[in-house]
């Protein structure tokens, strides 16, 4: 292949999320002359962003103090917190864990916020390129130093050959490359493996979050009301719960998170979310309303003990690409921003990547992660032991002398117990009818002629071993119904409806054989989230 076109920057940032943008903005504030390039796989900043999101404003106040006056997106001050334990018929109020007290916080659409931050970054002179995914990491000849990122090609045919409009992706080179791809970044995953960044840390763990934005009839909502639930319809051994946030203009953000360390191969996260919406106390809220948008995204849950080393020669891993989210708070935005700002300050002062990891651990954000490190793993033994452990950890402020272990999510599935999966679910009346109907509200789009971006290494495994042991869990955990087992003239095979993919990364995480690899599709492909 011919030499690719190249471009050189001082700093290259992959991913325009809260981490990447906070880093870019801070770098420019410290050194306005610096050339900074940010690439983002979504066609517009925020287009692939899905979050709750109740955010802690501290880091944003520090980074862009004028945001409180000028930020135009959805932003509702938190008013009343509520935490409930559900059973099938009713619920019980629980005391608020300290991490869930939201006085002083704001409910935002993170997609809106990211779009606004992107404008601020551009106004400072950051070169921002939405619609350009990083597809490969570039190394120097020794393979021991990151030199940049290759951008994905455009206009390939399905078989990978160049189509009529083929445009070769360029090589972007930089003194420092900062990876800020968010949860389970596919380049971050490659780096962790390449540099064995996780040699001294525990396996990363994840959850899948699904969310819907609803428009409801007048006077049903109290703007700023924040409800979290645990319990029903989740099985007792499965971690997770719901979030229900009342926005302005009669809009409601409702979502559900399921820990991806679940054991039952038959479990269907999407179905659990839909069941939850039909709880006798939730359904009346939604009836007569209308869905505006939907989506799904994995979130990191491993916390302090699962953080890989965040610095390596020529590169840094920041935000949820490393895994900075605070699980008990289910808040990662303020952590991602802090890790980005800290990265900027570190590079500005030290002119090198070395030392960033230690610096992050010693920072306020690192200490925050350390304090809550034992809460999430305490739930491995189920809801009640988890709650008791959480209470103890909270009481002691994380000063327990031990650190609980994490286990890789893909190793947690139990093989089928001889029985086929039960596919009969209780009847539902609220939309969406099924995953396909839900994807419609994610407005996801992939040019159909491009190569399939979900790479399944061994498809024989799907029809033999995986089918027998786990009944193909990919057909159930994917929130967009991308994976289907079909039987036709060619026999039984896995069909990948890649065009429906919403880039949540669950398949890359949960596949029990680690047989599925998410790669970046053609630039700009993917969901077109609106206000998520």
């Amino acid at each position, binding site marked *: 292949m011919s030499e690719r076109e190249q471009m050189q920057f001082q700093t290259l940032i992959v991913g325009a999320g809260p981490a990447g943008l906070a880093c870019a903005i801070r770098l420019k504030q410290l050194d306005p002359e610096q050339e900074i390039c940010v690439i983002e796989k979504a066609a517009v900043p925020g287009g692939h962003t899905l979050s709750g999101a109740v955010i802690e404003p501290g880091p944003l106040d520090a980074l862009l103090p004028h945001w409180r006056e000028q930020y135009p997106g959805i932003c509702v001050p938190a008013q009343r917190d509520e935490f409930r334990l559900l059973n099938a018929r009713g619920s019980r109020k629980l005391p608020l864990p300290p991490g869930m007290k939201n006085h002083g916080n704001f409910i935002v*659409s993170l997609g809106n916020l990211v779009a606004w931050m992107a404008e601020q970054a551009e106004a400072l002179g950051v070169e921002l390129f939405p619609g350009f995914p990083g597809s490969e990491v570039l190394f120097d000849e020794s393979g021991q130093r990151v030199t940049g990122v290759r951008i994905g090609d455009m206009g390939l045919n399905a078989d990978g050959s160049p189509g009529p409009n083929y*445009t070769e992706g360029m090589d972007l080179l930089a003194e420092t490359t900062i990876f800020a791809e968010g949860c389970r970044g596919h380049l971050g995953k490659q780096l962790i493996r390449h540099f064995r960044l996780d040699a001294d840390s525990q396996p990363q763990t994840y959850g899948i979050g699904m969310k819907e934005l609803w428009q409801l009839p007048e006077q049903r909502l109290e703007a700023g009301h924040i409800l979290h639930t645990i319990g029903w319809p989740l099985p007792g051994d499965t971690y997770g719960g719901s979030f229900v946030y009342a926005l302005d203009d*009669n809009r409601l953000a409702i979502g559900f998170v399921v820990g991806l360390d679940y054991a039952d191969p038959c479990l269907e996260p999407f179905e659990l979310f839909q069941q939850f919406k039909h709880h006798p106390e939730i359904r009346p809220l939604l009836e007569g309303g209308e869905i505006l948008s939907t989506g799904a995204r994995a979130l990191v849950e491993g916390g302090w003990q699962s953080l890989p080393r965040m610095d390596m020669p020529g590169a840094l891993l920041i935000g949820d690409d490393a895994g900075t989210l605070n699980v008990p708070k289910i808040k990662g935005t303020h952590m991602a921003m802090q890790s980005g700002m800290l990265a900027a300050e570190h590079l500005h002062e030290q002119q090198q990547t070395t030392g960033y990891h230690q610096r992050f651990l010693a920072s306020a954000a690192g200490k925050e992660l350390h304090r809550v490190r034992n809460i999430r793993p305490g739930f491995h033994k189920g809801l009640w032991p988890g709650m008791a452990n959480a209470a103890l950890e909270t009481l002691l402020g994380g000063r327990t002398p031990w650190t609980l272990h994490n286990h890789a999510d893909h190793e947690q599935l139990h093989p089928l117990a001889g029985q086929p999966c039960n596919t009969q679910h209780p009847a539902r009346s609220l939309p969406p009818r099924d995953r396909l109907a839900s994807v419609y509200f994610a*407005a996801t789009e992939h040019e159909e002629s491009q190569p399939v971006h979900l790479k399944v290494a061994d498809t024989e495994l799907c029809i033999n071993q995986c089918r027998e042991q786990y009944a193909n869990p990919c057909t159930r955990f994917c929130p967009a119904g991308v994976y289907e087992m079909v039987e036709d003239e060619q026999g039984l095979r896995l069909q990948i409806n890649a065009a429906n993919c919403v880039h949540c990364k669950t398949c890359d995480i949960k596949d029990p054989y680690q047989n599925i690899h998410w790669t970046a599709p053609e630039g700009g492909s993917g969901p077109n989230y*609106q*206000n998520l």
Partner: protein
Amino acid sequence: MKILVALKRVVDYNVRIQVKPDGSGVAVEGAKMSINPFDEIALEEALRLKEADKAEEVIVVSIGPEAAQQQLRTGLAMGADRAILVQSDEAVSPLHAARILHTLVQAEQPGLVLLGKQAIDDDSNQTGQMLAALWGRPQATFASKVALEGETATVTREVDAGLETIAVDLPAVITSDLRLNEPRFVKLPDIMKAKRKPLDIRPLEELGVTPPPACQIVRWRAPEPRQAGHKVETVDELLTALKERGVL
């Protein structure tokens, strides 16, 4: 020869359109905005003509809010030489747009004006035709092929009966159909270069164009949702179902 291309900023075709709850318009907050796809095709054609040495300069024009600069910058990144934004926060009607474009045409004196056959937001399919009439020049609409030779444009049009090929004298107005070409992908260095190309912003009021009597939009409403389909197993079942619906 100069080519003038009109680009409208519209809600992207992938976005699911949401009507505001009070029916006063379409909710565009947080929605991805793009160049109207037919206009993008028009621009691609203009760029190909320039690359084939049939034109010296390609100027992109948009009438819209300040944010329409984004679409003009994309046009510049694709290869246009300069851009003009006629800034107006209010949506303009097709006749108003045609009058504004006519004013610019008089100032710029292009040999060809290329624009999309219609915008995907209001589907009016009028601006190009009205501009040709105001300008007093020929028009070739729904183009699926364009060839320039001297003072003549030979244009293949997609009409109901098939393909119609006509020749028009230049200067002329040509509106593009879907099959005219497939627009190129923009390259990253070109986006950077586009930031330095001239983009001239003119407030609409300063152009002195008389707005036509406004047509008032009474109400917006989303189409009724489609009922879920129903699968039948046998021909008998199909016949019964058709009879139930009174089709048979």
